[in-house]
């Protein structure tokens, strides 16, 4: 048996950099795309992505809130309602998969996924799914690369968030109607601090952001009365003044200005551009696009750019990715692709066509990351420590073989499969290149091995 070539031809630097930006920000290269981006200039490609307009809004064929949500359903109807929720969740996950795999507006799509984790609203909670299409269309997508204060306000006012974190149920102690119950005595409604806590802990300051239990309670009182219209196909935000706690409130040592709804809005503005929030978002973005333990100076300058731009996300990302002589956009890949990113990059690498995304969604479920079904309000984790274990890699290998053998339902591969070796970076480990060089391997096996290789798990 002939020895494999151990020295791959030295890649030119533009090719290397093109592969890196496509893996980091472009959901992985399609066949031939590395060469195109290398010719165009990898940094130029990143600048263009940062400058490009938001994509057109998503089609309005996505369902609105079904009328049954507002009715008290009979028992036999509930099964049908559950099915409808599953259908909505599936359509949204399919939309994300198709958009990411298409490669159009890749950075925008990355930021949609980023905010979908940061402001996670998960269809795992019953009935949440019905609010998600509008959440996706009017909150996540329009604001993905906009201003953070606008995004934060939009999340706080949207029925999806108001429902998911129970704020619509949070009212001033003893206010409003008594709670109707089917059995037992009526009880006054009261405060629910779920949203307030996550606002401080997950959406803005972070768990060690310097607030206390008392701040959580005062924040919860500031948002009493923030609710949504009932009985509408597109329920809007509504402030129910009668349910608002009118007593003065102090959060983080400062009295909240204004009255009624203004209190919550002022608090959101303050939290959105708080230096602790800036630092935390900068770190989170750096973890998303650079490394699980990103360099401190990069986090610092990203936080500064966030603050000085008033939370402009394009300027913030430019500071993170394009700064200096060795911009981090071109740094060697150090992030483990999460399951969704890896599956999408495998579809792109093989030039696969998705005629029906259900097969791919089943795979994503097995790998533990379906868009829209985050396990908690914290979203899906973003560090290798939480995704890298033997069982997970084995599952990825199974998918790599199914995909390359054309066994994933709803996925069509091109008649001429891409060359497996072209999927690998020039500095791939020797064992990876050697494994692919066995002449007795079939072409699709070689392709599967490349997709399952350590190198293709990285971005």
């Amino acid at each position, binding site marked *: 048996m002939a020895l494999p070539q151990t020295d791959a031809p030295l890649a030119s630097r533009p090719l290397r950099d093109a592969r890196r930006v496509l893996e980091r920000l472009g959901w992985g290269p399609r066949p031939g795309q590395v060469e195109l981006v290398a010719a165009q200039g990898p940094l130029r490609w990143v600048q263009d992505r940062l400058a490009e307009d938001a994509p057109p809004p998503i089609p309005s064929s996505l369902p609105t809130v079904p009328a049954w949500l507002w009715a008290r359903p009979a028992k036999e109807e509930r099964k049908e309602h559950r099915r409808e929720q599953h259908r909505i969740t599936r359509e949204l996950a399919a939309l994300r998969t198709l958009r990411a795999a298409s490669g159009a507006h890749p950075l925008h799509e990355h930021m949609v996924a980023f905010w979908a984790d940061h402001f996670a609203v998960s269809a795992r909670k019953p009935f949440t799914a019905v609010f998600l299409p509008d959440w996706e269309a009017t909150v996540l997508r329009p604001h993905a690369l906009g201003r953070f204060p606008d995004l934060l306000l939009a999340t706080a006012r949207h029925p999806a968030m108001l429902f998911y974190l129970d704020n619509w149920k949070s009212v001033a102690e003893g206010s409003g109607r008594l709670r109707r119950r089917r059995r037992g005595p009526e009880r006054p409604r009261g405060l629910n601090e779920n949203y307030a806590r996550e606002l401080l802990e997950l959406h803005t300051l972070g768990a060690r952001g310097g607030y206390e239990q008392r701040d959580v309670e005062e924040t919860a009182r500031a948002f009493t009365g923030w609710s949504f219209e009932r009985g509408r196909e597109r329920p809007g935000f509504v402030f129910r003044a009668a349910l608002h706690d009118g007593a003065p409130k102090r959060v983080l040592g400062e009295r909240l200005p204004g009255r009624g709804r203004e209190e919550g809005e002022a608090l959101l503005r303050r939290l959105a551009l708080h230096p602790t929030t800036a630092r935390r978002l900068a770190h989170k973005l750096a973890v998303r696009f650079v490394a699980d333990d990103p360099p401190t100076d990069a986090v610092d300058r990203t936080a500064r750019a966030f603050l000085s731009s008033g939370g402009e996300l394009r300027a913030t990302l430019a500071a993170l990715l394009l700064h200096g002589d060795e911009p981090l956009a071109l740094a060697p890949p150090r992030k483990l692709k999460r399951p969704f990113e890896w599956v999408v990059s495998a579809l792109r690498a093989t030039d696969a066509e998705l005629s029906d995304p259900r097969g791919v969604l089943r795979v994503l479920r097995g790998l533990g990351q379906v868009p829209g079904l985050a396990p908690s309000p914290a979203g899906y984790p973003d560090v290798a420590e939480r995704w890298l*274990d033997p*069982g997970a890699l*084995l599952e990825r290998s199974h998918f790599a073989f199914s995909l390359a053998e054309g066994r994933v339902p709803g996925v069509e591969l091109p008649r001429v499969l891409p060359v497996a070796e072209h999927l690998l970076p020039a500095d791939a480990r020797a*064992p990876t290149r050697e494994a692919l060089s066995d002449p007795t391997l079939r072409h699709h096996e070689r392709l599967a091995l490349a997709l399952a290789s350590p190198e293709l798990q*990285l971005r």
Partner: protein
Amino acid sequence: MRGRGLSRRSFLKGSLASAALPFFFDPRAAGGAQGPGPSPLLLVVFLRGGADGLGLLPPVGDPQLARLRPSLVPKGALAFGAAADGTEFALHPSLAPLLPYAESGALAAFPSVGLLQPVRSHFDAQDLCERGGAPADAPVPGWLARVLTATGATAPLQSVAAVPSRPLALSGDPAAMAFERIEDLRSPGRSRAASEALAWMTRPLPGERPDAPAARIARVARQALGAVDRVHHRAPRAASLSSGPDFPRGPLGTRFATVARLVEADLGLVAAWIDAEGYDTHVRQGAERGALANRLTELAGGLDGLARRLGHRFEDLLVLVVTEFGRTARPNGSGGTDHGRGGVALAMGGALATSGIASPWPGLEDAALADGRDVAVTTDLRAVLALGARHLGVTDADSIFPGWRGASEALQG
């Protein structure tokens, strides 16, 4: 690598021929090879979301309970035992399948366990529970991974998380594996050449930095192939064992069934982990019926099913049921409860040294509540986790829980 003198094929042939065993096989890893004597088995069940201790194990003898939460006290709770101060506790009626274990001394409950830090965030609290006090940059972040490292139980399939992704508690154990069903443990390649190439790809390179990203992934992938090998060579039976009718339907039942099957197949399992989700009952928690009751029905069914399926191995088993915190003593405005402090832990197994209510009860008077709202923490959660460490043979619990001066106050398990 330059100038290798060995082709991939000949390397594999050599290694496979020189040993009849698969080349990942580590004889120390096999349960039977540890010599005679007991083979302790630990299962940790983590109730995600902060289980309501007062609902799971209501202190029915505490006069404050009915005052604080009249709507949330389950009717028909099952008498369980008394704390040292005489306060009577009862099991939630959905835990009825556990009653026989309580009666035979195979169940202990800790009614006010928690973190010493006043943390009410799920994510922070779960993090603290799973790290067991280790700093964020500890070389082995998870407490259970440290236990397994200390006892040398770090071969494939010695530690398994029967959940989709590995919990932080097992992070740092290179072989700890997450999978929900044993059927998932098969070789991805259909041809021999593909399987061999896959194995070759995970080969360690001399001189390679172990923390290089691709090297790290290769190392973990190698553990996966080792596990596949073990199932294939040691226990082909495992893949065909029925998951049986003994477990509740749904994901939690499947997870318990997977643990039972791993034990039945004699694959050398030492520690298993199961997540049970859905305990964050902010809204309409219910009392004897409702959201919490449904979760507890699944939990009790899973624990009982596992105990039955293990047969005589139940004597080797210790199950710890833990959660990140308890919930508020009073209901919130939505018929649920919010994040609190002291919660409940359970220990179940064939060789418990204690049973019944096994830690002190702080009481529910207003002055005794933490911040005037939550059950106080009287027992460090790590004292409960240390029972698991001790069960697996770690005597020096301080090394597992850095900074914990708890060895002296450790519970008798």
